[in-house]
């Protein structure tokens, strides 16, 4: 057998003719769209031409009703009476939906059973769903809802963290139990430390501002079944919640989603509400129903990133080496539990960021407020936790007179391993020293530090700031059982492949990456792999596409499915052609069998005729992860993703206005499955993170009304907020030490936290505005107003 000849990349090498193939196979050197290729998003051409369909774009079935959800006007009140007479009589109305109409359970929560679809006794935040109207048009439904007459008796409401602390202490109970992680003897280490300082940083929440708002449609089926289309990251949970609401088994509900117009965590637990309401309307009326809140209702009604208060106390030496760190987190959860426990935990898991803390204590309280229930958002609490230690780093540098980068570098987790996290996990894969070292050199940190110093000496009004900050982010759901995924791969007898898995597409390019994995496995061009909508009917019991896990989990599951089919094809070839297994080799769009070869499609066709199964599920569960809450220890993460960013800003000390002038990013994605998509995740995550820490301010009035509930008042970054000099590079040495799919690393969330460099640079600039005696307690979001207040504080202006 002359393998070398057949593998000839020139394609000119003579191939031994064989009776096996009808047509000679093509001889590309490699397949189109295998792994590691910078392939465009599978829907890119459809996106740019408006042909990509989102749920609201699907043709409506005849008789479809539009559902409007009416919102609570009160932050906390007892419902004394509700009269829907006028609503029912309004033109175009088919049904008024209340708790009494729900055949099953009146709840859309992910875990705790504390999110009523429609409240019966009390309302607990402004914007809580009260009831819904199904009508011919959304305008008719909305107009009709105004005719409802409610009487309320107001109850005390806690809106802010301070108010929540008072009410929790008075009640002797927090929304969720506090949790503490401990490493070493913190009190002793603080006591013996050369220097100790303490401070507080408040970190605001964030609205997801997915461009496509929440939406669900429901079509009633026979036997009381329900077909739901939901813009969701978590079809299985929507399925379960709709079934629970209808009082039917999970198998009676099918949930489908082809793509979302953005998710960012906001479509993890929240979509269950809209799907449940649409399904309820469909159940009550027997008609298809659509529920799509407008932007304002969406922003008022749905959960956001958790606002947190972080108190820190650090002990360190004059060289900036930390001896001990003590953190106290207070988490504003909103009115219900939702995912707040796991989110608050992840803030704790990232309280150390990339720094080995010899002794640490992290205490976290999770408080109830009469505001919307906060929920998952890219980073899942991790970003907030990291802000605490990064602020401490800046403050240590200020206290010691060292460059903040030097303080950071002296505390990194060593590459050699040996250090434990505050939750007692050994960090064995730290590459942060390498990454930061490379970035420091490539971005001219030291030279620019000098230039910034000179600029600040020359300019009384404008001040510049510079910061280089690291990211270490733990990859895996910290709720260990969620780390599993399934896939379903069909090979049709013409050799075309249909791919399905439990992951959802929200723009991150997951579908493209998983298709690349399948193409690579079969060694066929990616255009032979059809990407299909996520549906609970094909892959059951899926986890949310969240925690950056999409490619890690679904890529492995799809590979397993493809591999199972491939094994059967190899079995067939061995039987049929009497060759050993290692003599069946999948090459680009063809299969080498002994010294003959045939097109992939031909082998598939033969296998079909020989009655071989060409469909398989695939399954993957991340090995070796666990976390024990009792002892607050374990190995909750499969591995860590690393990155670093350097940001330079300028502030105006008269107005607090500022600009990001340059940013340099170096990020570790392991061996990239798709460099183009990964770069997109990194840049997009960075800018989104910058928005969180700068202009995106959620503002509630005293009555608990969110007053920033549309883009007119809630300001995410625009094209002009991105500096032209923004360079993003993938770390070339990157390789996952854990055996992930092609040794890649998760990329969805980690880059978000690179934006802490901007916040840190702003702090640096504010420092430069003072006389060096006071350190600014700049809180986030660092709006121009907060920057100006911090400037005044360091200048001693009241």
């Amino acid at each position, binding site marked *: 057998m002359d393998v070398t000849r057949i593998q000839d990349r020139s394609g000119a090498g003579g191939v031994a003719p064989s009776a096996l193939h009808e047509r000679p196979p093509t001889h590309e050197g490699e397949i189109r769209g295998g792994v590691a290729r910078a392939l*465009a998003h599978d829907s*890119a*051409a459809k*996106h*740019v*031409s*408006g042909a990509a369909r*989102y749920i*609201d*774009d699907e043709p409506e079935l005849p008789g479809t009703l539009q559902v409007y959800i009416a919102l609570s006007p009160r932050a906390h009140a007892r419902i004394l009476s509700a009269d829907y007479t006028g609503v029912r009589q309004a033109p175009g109305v088919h049904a008024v939906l209340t708790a009494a109409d729900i055949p099953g359970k009146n709840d859309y929560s992910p875990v705790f059973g504390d999110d009523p679809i429609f409240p019966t006794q009390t309302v607990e935040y402004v914007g809580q769903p009260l009831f819904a109207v199904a009508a011919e048009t959304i*305008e008719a439904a909305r107009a009709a809802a105004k005719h409802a007459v409610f009487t309320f008796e107001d109850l005390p409401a806690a809106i802010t963290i301070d108010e929540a602390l008072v009410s929790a202490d008075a009640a002797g109970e927090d929304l969720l139990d506090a949790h503490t992680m401990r490493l070493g003897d913190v009190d002793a280490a603080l006591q013996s430390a050369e220097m100790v300082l303490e401070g507080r940083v408040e970190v605001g929440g964030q609205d*997801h*501002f997915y*461009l*496509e*708002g929440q939406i669900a449609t429901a079509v009633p089926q026979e036997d009381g079944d329900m077909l739901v289309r939901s813009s969701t990251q978590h079809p299985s949970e929507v399925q379960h919640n709709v079934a629970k609401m209808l009082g039917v088994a999970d198998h009676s509900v099918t949930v489908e989603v082809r793509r979302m*117009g953005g*998710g960012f965590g906001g479509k993890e637990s929240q979509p269950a509400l809209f799907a449940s309401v649409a399904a309820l309307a469909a159940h009550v009326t027997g008609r298809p129903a659509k529920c799509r809140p407008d*932007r*304002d209702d969406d922003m008022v009604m749905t959960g956001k990133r958790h606002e947190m208060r972080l108190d820190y106390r650090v002990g360190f030496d004059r060289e900036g080496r930390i001896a001990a760190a003590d953190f106290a987190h207070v988490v504003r959860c909103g009115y219900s539990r939702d995912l707040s426990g796991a989110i608050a935990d992840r803030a704790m898991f990232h309280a150390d960021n990339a720094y080995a803390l010899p002794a640490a204590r992290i205490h976290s309280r999770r408080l109830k407020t009469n505001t919307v229930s906060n929920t998952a958002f890219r980073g899942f609490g991790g970003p907030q936790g990291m802000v605490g230690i990064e602020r401490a780093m800046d403050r240590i540098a200020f206290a010691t007179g060292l460059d903040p980068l030097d303080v950071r570098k002296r505390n990194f987790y060593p590459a050699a391993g040996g250090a434990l996290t505050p939750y007692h996990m050994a960090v064995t894969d730290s590459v942060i020293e390498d990454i930061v070292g490379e970035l420091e050199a490539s971005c001219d940190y030291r030279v620019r530090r000098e230039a910034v110093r000179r600029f600040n000496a020359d*300019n009384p*009004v*404008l001040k510049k700031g510079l910061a280089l900050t690291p990211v270490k982010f733990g990859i895996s759901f910290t709720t260990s059982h969620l780390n599993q995924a399934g896939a379903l791969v069909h090979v049709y007898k013409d050799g075309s492949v249909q791919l399905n898995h439990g992951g959802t597409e929200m*723009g991150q*390019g997951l579908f493209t990456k998983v298709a690349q994995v399948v193409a690579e496995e079969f060694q066929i061009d990616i255009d032979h792999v059809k990407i299909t909508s996520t549906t609970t009917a094909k892959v059951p019991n899926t986890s949310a596409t969240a925690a950056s896990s999409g490619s890690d989990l679904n890529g492995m599951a799809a590979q397993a499915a493809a591999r199972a089919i491939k094994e059967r094809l190899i079995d067939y070839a061995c039987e049929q052609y009497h060759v050993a297994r290692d003599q069946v080799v999948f090459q680009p769009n063809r299969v080498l069998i002994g010294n003959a070869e045939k097109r992939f499609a031909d082998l598939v066709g033969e296998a079909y005729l020989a009655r071989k199964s060409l469909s398989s599920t695939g399954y993957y569960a991340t090995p070796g992860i666990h976390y024990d809450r009792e002892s607050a220890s374990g190995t909750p993460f499969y591995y860590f993703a690393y990155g670093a960013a350097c940001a*330079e800003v*300028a502030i*105006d000390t*008269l*107005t*607090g206005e500022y600009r990001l*002038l*340059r940013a340099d990013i170096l990020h570790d994605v392991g061996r990239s499955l798709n460099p*183009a*998509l990964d770069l*997109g995740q990194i*840049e*997009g*995550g*960075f*800018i*989104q993170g910058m928005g969180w820490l700068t202009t995106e*301010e959620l503002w509630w009035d005293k009555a608990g009304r969110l007053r*920033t509930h*549309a883009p*007119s*008042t809630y*300001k995410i970054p*625009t*094209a*002009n*907020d*991105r*500096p*032209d*000099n*923004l360079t993003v590079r993938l770390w070339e040495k990157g390789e996952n030490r854990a055996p992930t799919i092609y040794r890649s690393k998760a990329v969805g969330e980690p880059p978000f936290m690179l934006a802490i460099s901007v916040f840190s640079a702003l702090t640096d600039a504010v420092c430069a505005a003072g006389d060096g005696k006071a350190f600014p307690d700049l809180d986030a979001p660092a709006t*121009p*107003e907060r920057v100006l*207040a911090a400037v005044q504080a360091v200048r001693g202006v009241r």
Partner: protein
Amino acid sequence: MAEAIRTIINGQERRIEGVSPTTTMLNHLRRTERLTGTKEGCAEGDCGACTVMLIEPDEAGGLRRRAVNACIQFVPSLHGRAIETIEQLGRNGLHPLQQAMVDHHASQCGFCTPGFVMQLYSGWLTGALTDRQSVKDVIAGNLCRCTGYGPIIDAGVDLARLEPPDTAADDAVLAERLRSLRGAETFAYEGEGARWFAPASLDALADLAAAHPDAVLVAGATDVGLWVTKLHRELPVLIDVTRVPELHGWSNDDLTVTLGATVTHREARRILEDLHPDLGELMRRFAGYQIRNAGTVGGNIANGSPIGDLLPALIALGAQLQLRHGTVGRELPLEDFFIEYGRQDRAKGELVASVTVPKLRADQLFACYKISKRFDSDISAVMGAFRLTLGDDGLVREARLAFGGMAGTPQRAKAAEAALVGQPFDAAAAERAAAALRDDFTPLTDMRASAAYRLTVAGNLLRRFQMETGAAGTRTRVLDLSDVA
């Protein structure tokens, strides 16, 4: 007398009848035409996902094209105009812009993408894409939550390098078709019990406005559109003022420029930046590009927003407002037009016709500053505009200090002005004027800023003005800093 709306959508002639005149273009496109490539992101003109290209005959026999937010435009405004949506672009394969977007990986979730494409495409056709900064300015009213914008900007820069096609011949034909669809007289439309008039002359407009004193006058619909999409108000009678040629002109003499009421903000930028670069910069950051394409100077004035970015600038410049009621015209200083929050000196049936802005003289100092949470497409927390007239002795002879965001209306700071008059404009005078602002204003705290911030910044803007006009040459604006290389 009710007529059908005659329009051309993606090259297809359409008659639209029976629908309410406050039906938005977006809902019509998505629900009736089933053109679902155009998306609803916010229904208030702040995200750009609904961007379409509006096409109408210009005065020279050709076409005027502009990108607008379909979500807040009303369907009757399509009468005699055409629109193109994302479905039209690339119907014969991807347009070079679309290909560039794909090549640069400029879409992730894709929901904002059609809006960006239509915005860049319209900007390109109208010559607005010149360099990288112009690309960013053109798309600053389009929000993307996924990409961080870099790849979209890169695609726009690629497009800017291409020469737009010469469409003059086709344009003339389409212009003629649209003119014949439009008709020469007042367009009167009725649907679901509400009426829409689009008069074609100032006299006809004045008559209609007098005859329907409760009618809502609508120009760019950048505010009135939100009355419908956000406040869900019913508007029984609307009068579209955008077809009145007399309102759309502008004139220029040695001492003043006069802007017709329906001069759009984008057109106003070109006129005003010649008066002072700060005015150009103000208009660059006034809302988003699509809003500037639709919103008008007269609408901005008539609405009397307490902030109304442009208003303090015009007041500081000493602008005079011309109003018309039936056949009677009158003129008053712009600042006197704003009586209190939500109330202007405009009788029912009276309309804003034009505003006359004195040009700056050699003995005058001027600056205006917009302070907002975000630089682009945001409403200012504080807007300050200052004009000082200096005597031969170098002392301040007249001071006009106008602020937005500090009171229920745009207002002059009389106490601060008094503190400056008769003084040299030095640091000490600026300090006294800043201190005097406490007598002028008691601002509110809201989601944009606290009262304390507003007062501090208002004073600091006076300090900034003094620094910038003084000898020290202190750098005071972060936007003037170039990116770090």
